[in-house]
């Protein structure tokens, strides 16, 4: 069987190693030249009760060509236990008792293949997953078009490692490698590369390499020898990838974000400083940067979110490229301090990896619900630059861009990512530093020595930047309003009006140097799908399917110069976003009289392409 692209879902208990298995499989596919898009989907609990519906952890990958999203539904499911089988077939851990397969809500396509560990379907397992009968397949109402491949994963893993000397707990933890070996066979993936990955993964625990490699290889051979009664699937390989061969890697959004900051600091000739506080799903950015002391990165794990941004503001005041990383609740806490950076006109990069809200909400799920908070969530008239990344890989680009704009325009820049981008992976073409746009941090002319004050601006309206250590530029910065000429405290009403406008127009003017909007898909259609940030892939896929145009915004404030013109060209303009209409509200405010339709979802999950298409046709 040959396919253009295929969606594989690995699903098991949160301790079953599904994220590792999925990530390895995705990387193996990328090595072969496949495009990949991945979606980790795990519970908030570190270890929920074993075998229960709430403890199910999934990892979905779409691989092949024309891959825009991790896929709405899976072609192949690897289910490690009864709970995983149920959650995937019914589409959720919260299905009503007695629910049966429904193609509309199931995570599986009608013609999917399910590889399931038969040893994990014992009476006790079924009970924990709240089955009512002893036949899960009948109970779940699987249609005949779905092929079930029963495999005794547990038993064979035990046999594979019977002479390893490992204890039973450790042996059972290797079940995922048997499954991975089997799937590698099914998709004709190179097993030697998988072995290579395992060696890297267990560098610090070398005694685990050999047993894991053995289980993996046995899984592969199991498929080969028994010639499982399922067709092997061959993907047509991507020819375009050839040109970039040797320059590609797969990267997760949070890592790409961290590396974008590192690259920007080096190109700007600045020390990178991160002040941060652990918060899901942003913490991996701090982890990555804390490990990058070799790059000279300074990370302060602060006592709270406020101190995270405030230490960064201190570093910025002292002349560094300063950043803070957080998620929605943390952004709420940082609001006042971001206002200080706006008022003091200091460069600052704030990364908000959005999650389900409000309040603690859904910490491990994805949403685009912080847009208005990023735009307006501060006291006073408080404009800042707002950007949004679209793919895990382009988190690198927009993190770099956030630093460039902050340093060149003396402003806080908020970069919106989300759970979907943060934990998902995509292919990344590895750049060299020289290929990236130059960054020219704002400085101060030497003739101002002895006469400098913090209100002095260049012709772009950008304040000059002098910082401690520079002799002859001593000054006092502050969160109080300053006199537009002398830079000292002022409560003069005309001055305040002037300063409000100066801060506003400084940001507005940045639009002059931003790339114009670029319409994708069938641009001659009369219908335009509009999105921003991480929904780009879903929008393009939906536009392809119905033959309409799509445009995805990465610059939210200021908006690209041609926004009104592009949106004005289409009869139907449909704003699709994972909130109740926040970007639509921004567009309506920006373009008076604009008629918009909306497609919204706030379920904590990425869009389903199908859902967008249905709304379009309706």
């Amino acid at each position, binding site marked *: 069987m040959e396919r253009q692209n295929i969606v594989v879902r690995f699903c098991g208990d949160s301790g079953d190693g599904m994220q590792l298995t999925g990530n390895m499989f995705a990387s193996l596919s*990328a090595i072969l030249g496949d495009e990949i898009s991945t979606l980790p989907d795990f519970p908030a609990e570190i270890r929920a009760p074993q075998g229960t519906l709430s403890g199910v952890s999934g990892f979905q990958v779409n691989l092949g060509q024309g891959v825009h999203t991790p896929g709405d539904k899976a072609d192949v499911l690897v289910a490690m236990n009864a709970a995983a089988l149920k959650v995937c077939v019914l589409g959720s851990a919260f299905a009503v008792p007695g629910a049966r397969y429904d193609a509309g809500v199931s995570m599986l396509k009608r013609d999917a293949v399910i590889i399931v560990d038969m040893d994990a379907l014992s009476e006790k397992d079924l009970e924990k997953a709240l089955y009512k009968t002893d036949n899960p397949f009948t109970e779940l109402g699987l249609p005949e078009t779905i092929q079930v491949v029963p495999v005794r994963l547990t038993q064979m893993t035990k046999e594979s490692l019977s002479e390893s000397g490992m204890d039973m707990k450790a042996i059972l933890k290797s079940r995922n490698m048997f499954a991975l070996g089997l799937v590698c066979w099914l998709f004709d993936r190179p097993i030697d590369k998988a072995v290579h990955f395992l060696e890297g993964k267990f560098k610090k625990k070398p005694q685990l390499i050999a047993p894991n490699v053995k289980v993996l290889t046995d899984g592969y051979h199991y498929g080969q020898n028994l010639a499982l009664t399922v067709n092997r699937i061959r993907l047509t390989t991507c020819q375009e990838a050839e040109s970039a*061969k040797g320059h590609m*890697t797969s990267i997760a959004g949070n890592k790409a974000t961290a590396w974008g900051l590192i690259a920007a600091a080096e190109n700007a000739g600045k020390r990178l400083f991160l002040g941060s506080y652990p918060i899901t799903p942003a913490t991996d950015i701090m982890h990555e940067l804390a490990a990058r002391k070799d*790059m000279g990165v300074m990370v302060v794990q602060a006592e709270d979110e406020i101190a995270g941004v405030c230490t960064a*503001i*201190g570093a910025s005041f002292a002349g560094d490229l300063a950043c803070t990383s957080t998620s929605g609740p943390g952004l709420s806490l940082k609001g006042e301090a971001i206002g200080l950076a706006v008022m003091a006109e200091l460069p600052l990069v704030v990364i908000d990896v959005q999650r389900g809200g409000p309040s603690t909400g859904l910490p491990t799920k994805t949403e685009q619900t912080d847009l208005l908070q990023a735009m307006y969530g501060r006291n006073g008239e408080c404009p800042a630059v707002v950007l949004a990344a679209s793919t895990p890989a382009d988190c690198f680009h927009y993190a770099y861009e956030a630093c460039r704009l902050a340093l060149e325009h003396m402003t806080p820049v908020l970069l919106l990512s989300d759970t979907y981008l943060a934990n998902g992976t995509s292919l990344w073409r590895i750049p060299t530093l020289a290929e990236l746009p130059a960054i020219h941090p704002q400085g101060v002319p030497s003739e101002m020595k002895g006469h400098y004050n913090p209100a002095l601006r260049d012709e772009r309206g950008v304040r000059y930047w002098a910082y401690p250590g520079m002799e002859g530029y001593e000054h006092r910065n502050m969160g109080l309003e300053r006199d537009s000429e002398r830079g000292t405290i002022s409560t003069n009403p005309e001055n305040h009006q002037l300063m409000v406008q100066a801060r506003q127009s400084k940001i507005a003017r940045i639009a002059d140097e931003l790339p114009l909007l670029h319409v994708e898909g069938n641009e001659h259609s009369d219908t335009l799908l509009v999105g921003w940030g991480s929904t780009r892939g879903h929008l393009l896929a939906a536009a392809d399917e119905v033959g309409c145009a799509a445009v995805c915004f990465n610059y939210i404030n200021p908006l690209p110069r041609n926004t009104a013109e592009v949106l004005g060209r289409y009869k139907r303009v449909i704003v699709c976003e994972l909130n109740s209409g926040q970007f639509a509200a921004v567009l309506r405010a920006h373009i008076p009289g604009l008629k918009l339709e909306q497609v919204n979802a706030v379920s904590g999950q990425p869009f389903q392409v199908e859902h967008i298409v249905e709304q379009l046709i309706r």
Partner: protein
Amino acid sequence: MEAQQYKSDQYVRFCPGCGDHAILMALTKAMASLGIPTHQTAVISGIGCSSRMPHYLATYGFNTIHGRGGAIATGVKTSHPELTVWQMSGDGDCLAIGGNHFIHEIRRNVNLNICLFNNRIYGLTKGQYSPTSPKGFVSKSSPYGTVERPFIPAELVLGARGTFFARTLDVDMPTSVDCMVAAAKHKGAAVVECLVNCVIFNNGAHSLIADRETRADRTIILRHGEKMLFGKDKEKGLALDYSSGVIPRLTVVAADDERVLVHNAREKDPTLHRMLALMDGEAGLPVALGVIRAVEEETYDEAVNRQIEEVRSQAKAKTFDELTQTLERF
């Protein structure tokens, strides 16, 4: 350098008679005596009367937001340990809204010089009780007297494992200058509690010890290596009294009593420092001024920067292009 050179051209807007005037004077004198150039000095503050201080100094200054001066100063000093960084804060800014940052900058031992202006009142918001107002204190927000128990700043500092604590009184210029100079020379988070009077909303906040007639009897100025003597003619001394049970208590004895203690600010065990700092002028025990504790320990800013240098000196990849070479490439 002269003290005058550390003053900015800004008109000082503290109320006439406010204790902050004296602290500003002491600070510029201390800066002059230290001789660190204005461009190598950064003064960070939060919000409150005391937080206006940076505007009146010719150094780099940053008057930030309420309570966050400590976190911002931590960022300045950690990223640029070569700078001398002062933090100006009040009892509300530092101990209420900024309490978390205060204990953590001390716990980390960031090499900062922290002036904590304690007037036991919120002045800039016009007269509410603060975390250091005594129980029963009548203010605009406690018209029937506050029912809250106050903080004793020294206890917080020691509880956060502070390495330096000094206390001074606005009207005692020499002690103020001495404490600030010692704080600046101390490697680590150095807290100088400045007892200041608020003439408008809490006049006489420290009159028990500030009055000229009684000051000598109600305060003791501690100096490392010197006997703990006080009184007009240094006729009294402090000693430990073991008679009341297992825990010894400080007691007043004659100056020539052989039990008179010699002050050791460098003692790592904070027990005696705490007893000295808790003397409140009641029961005949004087309020301790001067440097009560000064213990050297590695500073956060030093340690963070050293760790980066160590990792870098052994790293194979030190640039972005070298880093990307370590990636699995397809």
